[in-house]
Every structure is written in structure tokens, then in C-alpha cells.
């Protein structure tokens, strides 16, 4: 019974994350307007392992984009930054954020920062601008 429970939890966790990765893939490919994006992630690197679009790099200098789960891990300040909380989004000059609020997924983008990195702002993303 315990084994079954673990499998169920693990599978749902995997699927939940796979949806999140899919979302990142969609947003980032639209922003960078290219099929493969080199990404630096401070955590959960394994979750991106199966992605054909998001290629994880160990050095943030080689990355197109930095995805931060923890603000303390911020190293490459000149790279476009994507965060996972609204506070981080407000406090740092992040191009966007994806987080959960009141059980609902939230996506928010900063037009000014996006434009400062000369990234492509697709029409479908306009409704997520703050």
C-alpha cells in the first residue's frame, strides 16, 4: 500500500512538473524566438533533463536565461532573469515570474525589462504583462 502511494505521489509530482517545464518551454521559446534556449537553473535541474528545448548549462555566463528559485543564488546579473515568486519579480529586474497564488497558477511578465534585453514579445504573451 505504501509503495502504491509513493508511486502515485511521485507520478503526479512528475506530471505536475512536466506541465511547468512545458510552460517554460513555451514562454522562453516565444521570448527568445529560437528553438533551443540555454538555461541556468539554481535548483531542480533534473526536471529539465528530458526537455529538448531547454538545455541546462552549469555556468550562468553560457546561458541565455537564468531561472531562479532562490534569490540568494543570483550570480550573473547581466543575464535575463526569470523568477518563481511575485516578491522576487518586484524586487529584482526579472523579465517575468511564474508562481502559484491561492491555488491558481500565475504568470507575469515585465515589458520594460523584456525590451531592455531585446527579447521578442509575442502577441500571445501580452495579456501577462504587468
Amino acid at each position: 500500500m505504501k509503495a502504491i502511494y509513493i508511486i502515485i505521489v511521485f507520478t503526479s509530482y512528475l506530471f505536475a512538473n512536466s506541465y511547468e517545464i512545458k510552460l517554460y518551454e513555451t514562454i522562453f521559446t516565444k521570448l527568445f524566438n529560437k528553438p533551443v534556449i540555454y538555461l541556468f537553473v539554481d535548483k531542480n535541474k533534473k526536471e529539465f533533463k528530458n526537455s529538448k528545448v531547454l538545455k541546462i548549462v552549469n555556468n550562468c555566463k553560457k546561458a541565455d536565461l537564468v531561472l531562479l528559485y532562490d534569490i540568494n543564488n543570483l550570480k550573473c546579473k547581466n543575464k535575463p532573469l526569470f523568477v518563481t515568486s511575485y516578491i522576487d519579480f518586484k524586487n529584482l529586474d526579472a523579465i517575468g515570474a511564474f508562481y502559484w497564488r491561492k491555488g491558481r497558477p500565475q504568470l507575469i511578465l515585465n515589458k520594460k525589462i523584456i525590451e531592455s534585453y531585446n527579447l521578442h514579445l509575442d502577441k500571445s504573451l501580452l495579456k501577462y504583462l504587468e
Partner: protein
Amino acid sequence: MKIKPVYIFNIIAIIILIVFIWLDYLFQDIEKYVLDTNYKENIVYVKNFSKNLSQEIKNKIKSNNFSNFLSKNKDIRKELEKDLSLFITNRYKYIYLVEKQDNKFRFLLDGSKDDKALFLETYEPIEIEKWNSVYKEKKDIYFTHKHIQNLWITYLKPIIKNNKVKAILVIDFSIQPYVKIEKVLKKLDYVFKLLIYFFIFVFIIIVWFSFVDLKRDKKLFELNKSLEKRVKEEIKKNREKDEQILYQSRLAQMGEMMSMIAHQWRQPLASISAIVISVKLKSQMNMLKQDMINSKMDSILNYTKHLSDTIDDFRDFFKPTKQKKLVSYEEIMDSVLSIIGVSLKNRNIKVNIDIRYSDEIFIFENELKQVILNLLKNSEDVLEDKEKKEINIRVYKQKDEIIFEIEDTGGGIDDEIIDKIFEPYFSTKDSKNGTGLGLYMSKIIVEKHLKGSLKVYNSKKGAVFQIILKESNG
């Protein structure tokens, strides 16, 4: 009247079916009541406290521009958030106030401690059209979230000031316990329905079996009826056959009787003939005297009387007795030998009689005599061409049975046919002398009329026929 188990099962199945249908009806009623009550009560409770909260918000925000007022009055904001947090429990998880600005929703107040939104934080609700409709309709709404299996309800209450929706008070509350109850009730309902279908199925099967049983019964009834008819027909045929056999047997008896009468008459007729010749001779010689004529006439009269008596004896002998009579075996043998004795003597057959049972027996006399006579006649026929011609008659008692035995010196009956000799139309004699009915009729008479048995076996000398009667007959 015997009730068949299949009918009992039928009745039980119908009762169970009715009970389950009734239980299901009752259960659906209860299910509807439980769900409606719980769900409605919950909504009513949320509506009530949201009404109070709404009033509190309106009272404290003394401006038409809520965001502007709250950004300037942080204390009131904190106060109101504290008010909201008072209603937060495990069930009422999120209580917050949002405002629509430039087609975007932003948080104004958030009563949560965990997952707390910032003031004026943008917010993208799921099913946003429903949120927009609150602004349009100015009416509160509530809806469940399908993507989380309807475990949560979002209640949206518009805060209306000057007939305009200024903000929406949002309460996210869990209905998980009710959903669980609903699920359990639905499962139970499903089980009930399943049971009903099962019992309908069982009922159909039982009805089918009953139908098959009924059909089988009908067939059996028809079979019985036809069997009964066939049995009656067979009985009728047998009766006709028996009558035919009886008729043939009587004819045969008559033939035998004629033969025996002829034997009996031969001697007196010869004597009469001799007297007549003697009288005729004396008359021709003129030696006939009156006293001699008288004497000869008396002799002739005696002989004719004897002839007449013989006829009477035979007639009485073959007449069936209507009532049982007490008679001894000695008397029976005397009577039988008076009929067949002359014939046996003429054929040089020695008859040895050894009667060791002297009591009288209560029996249909003539029937027993006929059987004995028939057996003796058979022995007589068998001994015709034999050198040693003897018939041994023994009567003795064995346990509670009286055994009458006739043994001849004819060499016995062939083992191959000994089992068939009592069958009708079975005869070893030629067609002139044998009908094959004598032993068959004898066996029937002994078994049916005398309530005894007729058996046969071979001794060293010849065939032995036994008439076995119960002593209680005596």
C-alpha cells in the same frame, strides 16, 4: 399441496427485489437531502459572514476608490485583513479582496497568513469570465473547480458602492468532506442499483427456470397421461389375451375330459356290450330266462348309472368352486384318482401316494384338483414310452408350508427349457396333444387363486412339481 422450491425462490427474489427498490428509493431521498442540506447550509453560512465582512469593508473604506484609500491607510488595511483572517479555517482557506484595474485583477486585502499576496499584486484567476460577470451582473456567484475534482468552491461577492462594483470579496472554501460524503453516497447508490440489477437478473433466471420446470411438468403430465392410456390399453390387451388363453385352456380341458370320460366309459361300455351279447346268445339258444333277464338288466342299469355318475363327476370337477372348503389331501387325491386313475392303470403307471399331512386345508377344492390332475396328466403323457412307469405323490409340511409333490420317472425336463415351461403356448408335446397352456394355467391358478406357488425341479428319477401352499390356508 406441495410447494416447489423454485416457487419459494421466486417469491424470495421478488421480496428482495422490492425491498432493494424501496431501499434505493429511500436512499436517493436521503442522499438528496444530505447533500442539499450540507451544501446549502455551507453556502448560506458563507453568504452570511461574507455579508458582514462586506459591510465591514464598506464601512471602513470611506472612499469610492478602494485601492487609493487602502494604499494611503495602511492601518485600516491591516485591520481589515485581520478581520478577514478571523474567518480563515481549514475549510475557509482563502478570504481576500480583489479589484479590477485595467482589465486586471489586483489584491487589495488578503486575510491569509500563508501564501499571502502583496497589496496590488496582479492576479490571474481561473475562469476569469465568471469574475468579470460579477462586475457586470452585480450579483454574488459561487462555482466549483472541475480541475481539482470539485473539491473547492469559490464564492464571489461584489462590494457595491453607489450602485457600482468596487471590488470582489473572494472566499475559497473546501467542500471536500461533502464531496467525500457525496462520493460514498453515490457509490452506495451504485451498489444498490447493481444489487437491484443483480436481483432482476436472478429473478429472470428463476422465472426462466420456473418456466422450464412448468414445461417439464406439463411434458411429464402428458407423458403420464399417455403412459396411463398405454397401460390401460396393455391391460385390456392382456385381459383379452388371458380370456383367449382361458378359452383355449377350457377347450383343451374339454378335450382331456372327453379323453378321460372315454377311458372311464370303456370298461362299463364293454361290460354292457358283454351283457348284451350274452343275452343275445342266450335268446338265440332259447336259454333266456326271466330272472336272468332281470339280473342282466339290473347290471346294465348299474353300468349306465355309473356312466351317468362319471359325467356328473367330471362336470362337478371342472366347475370352479365359488367358496373355499375344508378338505384333506386324501379326499383330494381320491377324487383326482377317480378321474384319472383308470387311465393311469390302463397305461400300467404305478402311483405311490405318501401323505404325511392329514389335516384339512381350507381351499378352493376344485381348483387344486384341476392343477393336480393336470400335473398327473402331464406325467402320464411323459411316461407313455418309458420302461419304468411310476408316479410318486408326497404331501408333507415344511416350516409353515404344505408341500404337495408329484414326481415321475420320465427322466426330467431339459435344463434349457425348464425355465420356460410355465410360459403360455410353450409345449414339448405335438400339436395334437399339447396346447402349451396347461402348466401356464396351473401356475396362474396356484398363484392367484390358491395364493401359493408352483415350482419345478429335476430329481434323479424325473421331474418334480411342487404345489406349495401356506399352512394358514388350512
